[in-house]
């Protein structure tokens, strides 16, 4: 006859097989209904008794994943030194030791830089020019210089147009009327506007022009450097001593060849005394060393450059729309200062708009940007009008409900005048021949591992949106598929 215990034993088998090793353990279990686990599940979870495991032996490491303050793991990394991260961010790499030397690469020289025979060729930049370009911060971190053995540029059709302008300015110089040619570089994003500006700078360096370049207009107007009202100016203009000193220092380094022989011919009224028999480079060095005198030194330098017999001048600026609006600076009445009231910007814009002419002729070049550009409806409108003039369609009408900057409209009004020498230089896509030429250069450098044939060129040219050079580089050098 089966006992009651036996029956209960049988029915509890389903609950917990491990609990039945001995009859004694069975009686220690809580009594629960058969085939239901809810009571056990909802019962309070049993607290684990601390210290149940044996303490680790002395000298034995245990895994400790808890975060604790003051432990060595919290802040073990060494912080970068002051300025180190910025230096890393702004670092310009112009050479890649792993890229192959391109044997067919010829350098640009003083004689061939303006020649039309270069069209469609990739030409190397000679060492001194690279140094000078570095000094004026013409190379940008976003450009692909770091892929190749040494800096080289494609002489595209727009570069030839620019070379013609340089030639025109040079040929006009010996005659009576010194010619000032003014151009605004426009075009799509990554179409090579900055690189074309760099090519213009290298032409000027090679032809031994005097170069003053504003490497990034944003830095002038974003109120990161000090400013002060210029005494005796009406309406008030503002000088930027630190920025001007930095600009003078860049100019001094970049135009080394000119400053070697340049003498002071005029009398200048400066706050800082000049040493006897000072050369022009000493004058500029004073401006670099004493930022408070930098603007008067800049004016003195300009006076010297205005004398007859001095070289042609290239004035260049990058990121034009930043200086075609109010700056971030405030005047004493807490109203924003217009960028054209900053002395350096005024100097540039006066020459761009044609209010002043370059004394010995030369070129004023301004590049627009499509990636770092505040909205400037007035500038865009003037550029659109100039484009319409070029393709001979109807000139667009200004939308009166838009808030345009009147001073920008005034400064760029020559863009609508076909007779004026202010014009745009549109940087478009490459032709297929140009694309082939630069892709052959990529391949010879070992950065494009593919046979460069018509099929590949057409494919990449189309992928790059009809030969946009930045996209072409992205498709063929940067993307490794």
């Amino acid at each position, binding site marked *: 006859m089966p006992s009651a215990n036996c029956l209960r034993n049988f029915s509890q088998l389903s609950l917990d097989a491990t609990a039945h090793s001995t009859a004694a353990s069975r009686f220690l279990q809580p009594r629960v209904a058969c085939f239901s686990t809810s009571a056990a599940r909802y019962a309070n979870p049993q607290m684990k008794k601390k210290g149940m495991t044996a303490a680790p032996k002395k000298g034995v490491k245990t895994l400790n994943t808890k975060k604790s303050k003051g432990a060595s793991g919290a802040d073990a990394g060494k912080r970068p030194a002051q300025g180190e991260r910025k230096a890393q961010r702004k670092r310009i790499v112009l050479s890649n030791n792993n890229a192959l030397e391109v044997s067919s690469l010829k350098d640009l020289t003083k004689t061939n830089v303006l020649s039309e025979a270069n069209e469609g060729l990739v030409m190397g930049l000679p060492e001194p020019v690279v140094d000078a370009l570095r000094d004026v911060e013409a190379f940008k971190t976003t450009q692909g210089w770091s892929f190749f053995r040494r800096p080289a540029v494609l002489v595209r059709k727009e570069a030839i147009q620019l070379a013609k302008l340089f030639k025109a300015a040079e040929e006009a110089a010996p005659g009576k009327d010194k010619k000032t040619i003014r151009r605004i570089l426009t075009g799509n994003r990554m179409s090579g506007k900055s690189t074309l500006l760099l090519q213009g700078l290298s032409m000027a360096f090679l032809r031994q022009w005097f170069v003053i370049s504003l490497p990034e207009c944003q830095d002038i107007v974003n*109120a*990161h*450097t*000090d*400013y*002060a*009202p210029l005494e005796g100016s009406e309406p008030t203009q*503002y000088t930027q001593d630190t920025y001007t000193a930095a600009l003078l220092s860049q100019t001094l380094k970049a135009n080394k060849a000119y400053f070697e022989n340049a003498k002071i011919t005029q009398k200048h009224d400066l706050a800082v005394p000049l040493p006897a028999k000072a050369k022009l480079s000493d004058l500029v060095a004073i401006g670099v060393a004493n930022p408070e005198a930098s603007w008067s030194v800049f004016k003195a330098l300009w006076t010297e450059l205005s004398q007859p017999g001095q070289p042609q001048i290239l004035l260049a600026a990058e990121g034009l729309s930043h200086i075609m609006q109010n700056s*971030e*600076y*405030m*005047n*004493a*009445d*807490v109203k924003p200062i217009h960028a054209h009231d900053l002395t350096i910007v005024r100097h540039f814009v006066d020459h761009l708009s044609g209010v002043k002419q370059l004394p010995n002729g030369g070129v004023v070049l301004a590049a627009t940007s499509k990636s770092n550009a505040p909205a400037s409806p007035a500038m865009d409108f003037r550029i659109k009008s100039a484009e319409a003039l070029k393709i001979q369609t109807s000139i667009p009408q200004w939308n009166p409900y838009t808030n345009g900057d009147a001073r920008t409209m005034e400064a760029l009004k020559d863009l609508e005048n076909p007779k004026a020498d202010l014009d745009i230089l549109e940087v478009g896509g490459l032709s297929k021949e140009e694309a082939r030429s630069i892709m052959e250069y990529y391949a010879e450098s070992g950065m494009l591992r593919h046979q460069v044939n018509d099929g590949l060129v057409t494919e990449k040219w189309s992928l790059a949106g009809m030969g946009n050079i930045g996209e072409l580089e992205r498709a063929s050098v940067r993307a490794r598929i």
Partner: protein
Amino acid sequence: MVFINGFSFTEATLVKRSLESFFGIGPKVSQKIMAKFHIHPWAKVGALKNATVMDLTAELSTMKIENDARREVQDNIRRLKDMGTYRGRRHAMGLPVRGQRTRTQINTARRLNKVERGGSGRVQM
């Protein structure tokens, strides 16, 4: 160390920040002062010329800031209290003054609504 209005600031402090450390000066007023003396928004205290620091101190000394500003606020509250107004009573009790509910969320009122509002200030060097 640079002394502005009797308080010392390390040279790496932003001028804006150092000005706004005074009771009664916020973003607008600091912007106004800096524009008046042509100090750019990112200027550090160490980069100021001595003359500018003196000008700043002179300007600050004519303004109602720090203890003067605190006293004005406290006087206003005290006046309400002395008149026996509801607002004065609420201030004295540390409760919301402008009809907010008191069932929950009156921590801000508890913290701020006092007769001695604004604390006692920093120690001037």
